[in-house]
């Protein structure tokens, strides 16, 4: 007996997209293009998953992640290839599927449980656990249509999480609920993984993927581009996403030069010595190069760099005007460089975004998403706060004896 629970061999899914044949106005001839076009949402995807593995699946929108899940959970049929599966598969494609708004929390637990494949006896056994996990005891007999969205999501996740399948497919469900609950869900999934349940996780939340999974698959355009360690896969995905960010910026900026007089072409992250980096140690300095192109002279552009955590908390930011720098009037392309003080951020994945304001932060001239980076530290993580700055410690009431500072 080998320990492989999923074996996908050259899986593919084709959709037919129909186009409307339109009369051409000028010569009233019919468009000669075919009426149907084939679109491969997924093609030639092969991989194996072992029992108890936590596998992350990443990729941009439309890369085929959800299609892969739909095939594995038998919601839709494959067009080619095959997949062999051992054990019971449960999928959490969208929390709350099958909830009926008119029914109470109690009734929905039974309904949702049975839709997801639990027997009545199983649900009854798990009932208290589900309610406790969702923290909705007081509202058990309230119709879920009156629930807050947080309660709704908590209940839905809780039912699905107590399924005890052999293989659990999780699609983007961690993007909901408050941060505390997200953390709880993640801890719970880690516990499931430890107990031998195989977990496949689709997420755009790279932090979640990184902490949950020992291996990732990166999909792009319906094809499997990478299968291996999370750090490498995430790197690849980020490169892929950056390609996406450029056209986005070009699109949003538009033609109005008065409104968007300056464009940020791209942002580079380097170490203090000037070589490219994506991982920094706690306390390291970061050099940021912002490549801009000014389409019209801009007086005193106020360059700005923000650093954001995966849960969208802006942890810190730098601004030329705030930091006492006066940038001269810019009228062509160029680079502006920022050397940060030693970064005191705790270890996590961060994203950057750059922008140009006027000196008073009244007008935003442009904005662009920059690369992501990791901060690495053995000890300091989110439990220590957003950042950590060492303090001075003294012993005794009046503190006459300095016992050292953190540096």
């Amino acid at each position, binding site marked *: 007996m080998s320990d492989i629970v999923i074996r996908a061999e050259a899986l593919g899914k084709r959709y037919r997209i129909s186009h409307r044949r339109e009369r051409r106005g000028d010569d009233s001839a019919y468009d000669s293009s075919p009426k149907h076009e084939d679109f491969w949402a997924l093609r030639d995807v092969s991989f194996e998953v072992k029992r108890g593995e936590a596998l992350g699946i990443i990729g941009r929108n439309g890369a085929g992640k959800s299609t892969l899940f739909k095939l594995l959970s*038998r919601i839709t049929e494959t067009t080619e290839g095959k997949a062999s599966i051992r054990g019971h598969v449960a999928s959490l494609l969208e929390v709350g599927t099958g909830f009926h708004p008119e029914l109470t929390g109690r009734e929905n637990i*039974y309904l949702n449980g049975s839709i997801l494949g639990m027997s009545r006896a199983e649900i009854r056994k798990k009932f208290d656990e589900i309610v406790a996990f969702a923290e909705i005891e007081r509202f058990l007999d309230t119709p879920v249509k009156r629930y807050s969205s947080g309660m709704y999501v908590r209940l839905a996740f809780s039912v699905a999480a107590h399924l005890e399948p052999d293989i659990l497919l999780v699609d983007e469900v961690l993007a909901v609920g408050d941060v505390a609950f997200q953390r709880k869900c993640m801890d719970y999934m880690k516990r499931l993984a430890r107990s031998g349940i195989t977990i496949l996780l689709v997420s755009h939340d790279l932090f979640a993927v990184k902490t949950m999974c020992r291996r990732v698959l990166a999909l792009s355009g319906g094809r499997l*581009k990478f299968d291996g360690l999370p750090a490498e896969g995430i790197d690849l995905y980020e490169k892929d996403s950056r390609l996406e960010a450029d056209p986005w910026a070009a699109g949003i900026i538009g033609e109005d030069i008065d409104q968007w007089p300056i464009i940020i072409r791209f942002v580079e992250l380097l170490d203090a010595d000037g070589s490219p980096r994506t991982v920094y140690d706690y306390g390291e300095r970061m050099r940021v190069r912002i490549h801009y192109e000014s389409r019209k002279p801009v007086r005193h552009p106020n360059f700005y760099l923000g650093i954001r955590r995966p849960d969208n908390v802006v942890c810190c930011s730098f601004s030329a005007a705030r930091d006492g720098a006066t940038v001269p009037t810019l009228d062509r392309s160029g680079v502006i460089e920022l050397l940060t003080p030693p970064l005191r951020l705790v270890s996590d994945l961060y994203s950057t975004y750059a922008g140009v304001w006027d000196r008073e932060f009244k007008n935003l001239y442009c904005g662009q998403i920059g690369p992501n980076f990791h901060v690495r530290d053995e000890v300091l993580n989110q439990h220590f706060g957003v950042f950590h700055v060492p303090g001075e410690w003294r012993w005794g009431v009046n503190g006459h004896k300095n016992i050292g500072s953190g540096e």
Partner: protein
Amino acid sequence: MQEQSVIPQQAESERFDLLIEAGRGEKNYWRDLWRYRELFYFLAWRDILVRYKQTAIGIAWALVRPFLTMLVFTFIFSRVAKLPAPGSVPYALLVFAAMLPWQFFSTALGEASNSLIGNANLISKVYFPRLIVPAGSVITSFVDFLITLGLMAGMMVWYGFLPDWRLLTLPLFTALAFGSAFGAGLWLCALNVRYRDFRYIVPFIVQFGLYLSPVGFSSNIVPERLRLIYACNPMVGVIDGFRWALLRGQSPLAAPELIASILVTSVLCLSGIWYFRRTEKTFADII
């Protein structure tokens, strides 16, 4: 960066529970259906529960609704239409005995044909044997039918007209009604997924069906030579059977017609299952 895992030669000893492959007739289907058997119950339970949520008199509607429907139809057909009744049977009972299966058939058909679309979010998000959805709708309607059957019993006591041994054959005719509603429902709900036209066609079928079935009249007013063709409407056999079983055989039941109805129902059921199974794999893609 291309780095795909290499698939080793499959060892003979490996056993997978499930093989997902294009065009594969799933041998697990009927086993899955059995595994998900409680879902029949839960979906029906949900539909019944939801129907009477936030109503003042609650579940009492389950009694009031069919009773009022019966009252209206009995009045229309016995007072307004003035159709002749055979033997000593009170006209109201004659109508009621026919309304009973008809009401079941028409609501079951209507609900079943819209069932897949109504549960589109489930279909596109979760796997379970899809057959459960239309079947669940028929079961929901069946619960209403049982309640109405209780009303029928009350009416028979009221008129002092009690059934004889023939009552024991009622389950057979009930099964026939169930089968024809289920079979037709399967066809219509599967077609409805792709062609929403059926959403408008079904109400017509139900409306015309009422006049094409011997609900307000007795089927012996149909000319003798047309009887067999007439019985191709499966509800003819069902309604005649209900009358025969409930009204001490005072309303006639002809064997050839009954057999024709049974045959049509069987064909409807089997072909319905065949068509449903053939198309259900694409439901999630096109719904």
